[in-house]
């Protein structure tokens, strides 16, 4: 076998020399711990090695069968949103030091700690919370963590969650709470979509650990009574948990200012490409109260000083609380996180700055409302279903047209357009409904093209 380009000691001469130093004649002797009867002695049914060129050519061939959102015009969001990624984000997250580092201490990895502290800080300013944790997998998982924290902090075992939540996210939350807390769904007002305060009041009790709401909601509208909902929670000794999409906070009141005790959300819009849903970034925050911090499941980086003036240092807070040290006593798990994406989010937020994020949020809202307006001009289409302000996503109902979402989407694809997510199965009570997403990447021409194609599709 030829010398492997990635395995320097695969040269037979080096092997011979190293084995001699070890004091064995055959490398097999080093595997003596593994009993012979359980050894795998066949050849793996995998291909033989290939050159870099062959691999590139082959994989590029496979990938060419994907049609990208750049080649088509897509109006999909629903938890993975299309936004422009500034070139600087890719430049920094391609830096080989960030790409290939892992878990060194501050003395080796100072830059990684600082970038992640800056991520924690900027998320903190966006959502108005003082404690932000190390990044985590995705919105669903940090929401599960938040729910778990609430049960620990309150020692109560019931969660109230709006019926309008994404069923996929609900599934992840249930996975985290199975056997730990009962999840009860709160109805929404059928006209406005807003969480039903009467239903909430009828379901909340002294057993409730927390009420969870989202802003904007999965169905795209803004939950406008965050403060009242937090007050209801607190009046029963329950916590208020809020999940957010971060760009909307360019102009929405941050949850830290309407009573949230724990905040979570999805950071993918902050400089991550969509990657078929494979580049998600959960963030988790809480009030600066020891009891809350102790219930946090993930690493927490604090800023500190060193023996030299003018140097910043960083250190992990209460390391003994996490699974790394407490094992099963932590009643939560943590581990390899999503640091490369968090570093990217830090870059993105420092590029945008306060004015940039404010303007971006407004641009998104202008474009999505233009789309709502254009689509609402089409006869028999109802858009949006709920009479509430929306951010970047909105529901489009086709019941009046006699067409199904699936039929409409097929017709759109013929025009090179990817229609909104079909949520008919997720929310049967809404009928034939698609969830559309419009952001800063959509031009007026894109939106007009969508309106024209929809018009044609429902005729």
């Amino acid at each position, binding site marked *: 076998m030829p010398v492997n380009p990635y395995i320097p000691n695969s040269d037979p001469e080096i092997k011979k020399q*190293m084995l001699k130093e070890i004091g064995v004649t055959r490398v097999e002797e080093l595997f003596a711990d593994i009993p012979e009867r359980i050894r795998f002695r066949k050849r793996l049914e995998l291909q033989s090695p290939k050159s870099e060129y062959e691999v590139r050519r082959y994989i590029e061939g496979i990938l060419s069968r994907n*049609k990208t959102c750049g080649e088509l015009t897509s109006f999909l969001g629903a938890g993975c949103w299309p936004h422009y990624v500034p070139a600087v984000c890719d430049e920094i997250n391609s830096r080989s030091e960030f790409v290939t580092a892992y878990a060194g201490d501050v*003395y080796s990895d100072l830059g990684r700690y600082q970038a992640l502290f800056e991520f924690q800080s900027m998320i903190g300013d966006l959502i108005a919370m003082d404690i932000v944790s190390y990044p985590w997998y995705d919105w669903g998982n940090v929401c599960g963590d938040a729910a778990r924290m609430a049960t620990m902090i309150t020692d109560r075992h019931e969660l109230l969650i709006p019926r309008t939540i994404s069923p996929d996210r609900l599934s992840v939350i249930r996975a985290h709470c199975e056997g730990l807390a009962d999840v009860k769904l709160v109805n929404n007002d059928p006209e406005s979509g807003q969480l039903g305060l009467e239903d909430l009041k009828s379901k909340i009790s002294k057993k409730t650990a927390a009420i969870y709401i989202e802003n904007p909601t999965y169905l795209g509208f803004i939950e406008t009574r965050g403060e009242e909902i937090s007050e209801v929670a607190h009046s029963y000794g329950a916590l208020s948990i809020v999940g957010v999409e971060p760009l909307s906070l360019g102009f929405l009141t941050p949850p830290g200012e309407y009573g949230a005790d724990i905040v979570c959300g999805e950071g993918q819009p902050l400089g991550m490409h969509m990657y078929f849903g494979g580049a998600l970034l959960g963030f988790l925050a809480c009030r600066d109260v020891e009891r809350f911090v102790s219930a946090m499941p993930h690493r927490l980086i604090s800023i500190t000083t060193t023996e030299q003036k003018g140097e910043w240092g960083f250190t992990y807070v209460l390391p003994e609380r996490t699974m790394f040290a407490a094992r099963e006593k932590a009643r939560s798990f943590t581990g390899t*996180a999503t640091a490369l*994406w968090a570093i990217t989010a830090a870059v993105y937020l420092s590029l945008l700055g306060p004015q940039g994020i404010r303007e971006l949020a407004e641009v998104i809202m202008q474009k999505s409302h233009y789309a709502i307006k254009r689509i609402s001009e089409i006869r028999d289409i109802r858009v949006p279903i709920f009479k509430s302000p929306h951010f970047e996503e909105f529901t489009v109902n086709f019941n009046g047209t006699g067409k199904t979402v699936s039929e409409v989407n097929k017709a759109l694809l013929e025009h090179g357009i990817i229609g909104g997510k079909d949520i008919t199965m997720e929310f049967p009570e809404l009928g034939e409904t698609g969830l559309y997403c419009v952001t800063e990447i959509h031009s007026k021409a894109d939106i007009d093209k969508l309106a024209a194609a929809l018009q044609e599709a429902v005729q």
Partner: protein
Amino acid sequence: MRDREITGYHAVAWKEPIVYQLARKGRRGYAVPAVEEEIKASIGDVLSLIPDKMRRKALPNLPELSEPEVVRHYIRLSQQTYGVDSGIHIHGTCSMKYSPKVNESLARSPKIADIHPLQEVETVQGILEIMYELQKWLCELSGMDEFSLQPRGGAHAVFSNARIIRAYHKLNGELEQRNEIITTVLSHPCNGGSPAAVGFKVVTLYPDEETGYPDIEALKSTVSKRTAGLMITDPYDTGVFDSNIEEYIKIIHEVGGLVAIDQANANCILSRLRIGDVGADLCHFNLHKTFSTPHGSTGPGSAAIGVKRELGKFLPVPIVGFDGEKYYLDYDKPYSIGRVGGFYGVIPNVLKAYAWIMTIGAEGLEETSEVAVMNNNYLIRKLLEVRGVSLPWDKSHPFRLQEARFSLEKMKEETGIGIADVNRRIVDYGLQDMETSHEPWIVPEPFTPEPPETTPKEDLDRIVEIFHRISQEAYTNPEIIKTAPHNAAISKIDRTPSSDPKKWAMTWRAYLKKIGGDEK
């Protein structure tokens, strides 16, 4: 070893301010795409739609910087980060191997970066094929029948497997009774933490003094009708392979439990042992360890879980199927534990692992485990010549697999210098600090180097020489170690904020409130 290859290192020390300190009011780093005038005219003031209470009163206090300043700041932070590409990397339990650059380059193609998870499957056949093939290859490598690529990291994989064990017993109507997961203390902490997060009671076995793993009798006296399953790591982070594994599996199966083996350390057994063949019911691989997806400064990782056919119905949905003509997302699993995360997994890592396996092929996988184990045993021989270094369980296990857990107990007793000091000093020589041990420390003053297959012999020799020098310092000039680091980007850190609520500040806003901005 020539002296200049060992000394003379100094980390880049920029004394870089926090990004907020670099800001200057009015600066901008990004121009937001414009909105067409027709749109503005058509819809008017959209922000007025938002009720006053929900309208943000003050802009978020983000830093204001221009693009060149942002770039310089984060380039400097990257320079102060020690990656696998930066130098010698032997952080144990992590298989810190070099990752071929072609994989990174392929993963950055818009053909994978710019696709949405909810597109019609006809438009994403390429990525689905890659996912499907990787599922199949991981089955071949593990002896399992079905794989899911959804979990994001090892702890998530163990969490998912614990949920499958729970779902299995629930379906059999035995969940009430079977509420115990047995693990071993030398298994990764997630083998205890994740099942506890699922609601299991966790029972931990300790290693025998002779062998380094629990004896059969200890397990026999622990199992009962309450046993839901066994969740352990094998091989261990000590580099010892727990050769009781077959017997454990038999014992657990006899009482009706399931066995899940954490294969995060699989780099050393590739093509030599398939845990499914040994009888395990579930397992997981860390793509970011064994399959060469770079670690990303602690993620995103990716950890695929594999199960035997009879447990396939519990896997998270969807997995990728193939009907002979086209690839599709298979949601048809009525007993599925549901989703464990958003969408389908960490897709760029899936592609990188796929590309890595394709590049090195069947022969390369065998070469990988061979050279990784050879490198490790070479390092063991050499490090044991260093004064103050010992290897627990060396009588019963003179050879180790992917890594070895050493002890500096003797050095600590004789000089007062322990692993925390050595780990600071080692940075001065241009090495990254080493993995010590997960908690609890069974081995006193532990360190766990793992030299993967991509480490050249010359680097192994450098590591050994650096150890000799630090040992010599410990015995002759311990002060230089106690006051280390001297050549790092910063000097010794004040760790008191770690446990002091008045001092800790996890955000700049908290720092400003507690300590104030004047100090620097």
